[in-house]
């Protein structure tokens, strides 16, 4: 199969190499390829076991990345106590800056 793929890549017009598949991989995943590009892309991966596996891994890893960050609990609003503490720190900081400026004047 490898020899057939190599021969077709060399002699059949429009047949992609594995390197060219890598160049199209992002757009294939995003759904940005034209019909003819999709056709030649899919033709290659139907013949190339390595590329078929590579393309599947690429897609699976995106899914696995998302699953690695699934939040078990729904996101709550910012706890009120935290918000109060942040505002208090803000006003304290502003007051300290004002005192320092007044002292400088």
């Amino acid at each position: 199969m490898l020899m057939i793929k190599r021969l077709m890549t060399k002699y059949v017009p429009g047949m992609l190499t594995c390197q060219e598949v890598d160049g199209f991989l992002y757009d294939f995943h995003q759904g940005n390829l034209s019909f003819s590009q999709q056709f030649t892309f899919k033709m290659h991966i139907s013949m190339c076991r390595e590329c078929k596996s590579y393309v599947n891994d690429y897609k699976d890893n995106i899914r696995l990345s998302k699953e690695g960050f699934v939040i078990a609990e729904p996101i709550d609003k910012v706890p009120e106590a935290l918000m109060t503490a942040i505002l208090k720190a803000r006003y304290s900081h502003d007051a300290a800056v004002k005192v320092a400026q007044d002292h400088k004047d």
Partner: protein
Amino acid sequence: MRDYSDKMYAICCRYFMCPDDAQECLQKAFIQTFQHIHTFKGDSQLSTWLHRITVNCALMQIRSHKSKRLSSISNLDDFSQRYNSYGERTVFSDFQGNNIENMFEKIELKTDMADLIFQLPEKYCNVLMLRDIQELSTKESAQVLAISEGSVKTQLHRARLLLTALLKGSGKHVND
């Protein structure tokens, strides 16, 4: 500030499972906001600017706790896929020719996946988090990161390739 706090907190919760860590991140993000608000020039939306600050604070907090055994991945900036004369893949290597697939042994998915992504070089981690995890568009991601849309696409693709190579070499184990 209250208008944006929930959104910023949601971003922090994406980076940290533990609520305490997420709240710590939010506090730091607000401190940064208060200290640098005078530098906001209005060339982007305020929400975008705040998003960027929150993302940067999250990554700084994560990197301050990062595992030493993975530091070799964080330094990976120059890497490429090598091909033979038939255009077939050979080695995915760094600039010194070291095979990246051998750099990281066994990864337990779902427990280590987030950790692995956080160990990637910063620009790749950022774009993966924004596009693949938070599912922002290319345009939104470009605004948050203050880079071009073309750079977002390139960096995202390279980040995904790097992740694929690292996982391939690790021997994936899918937890039940």
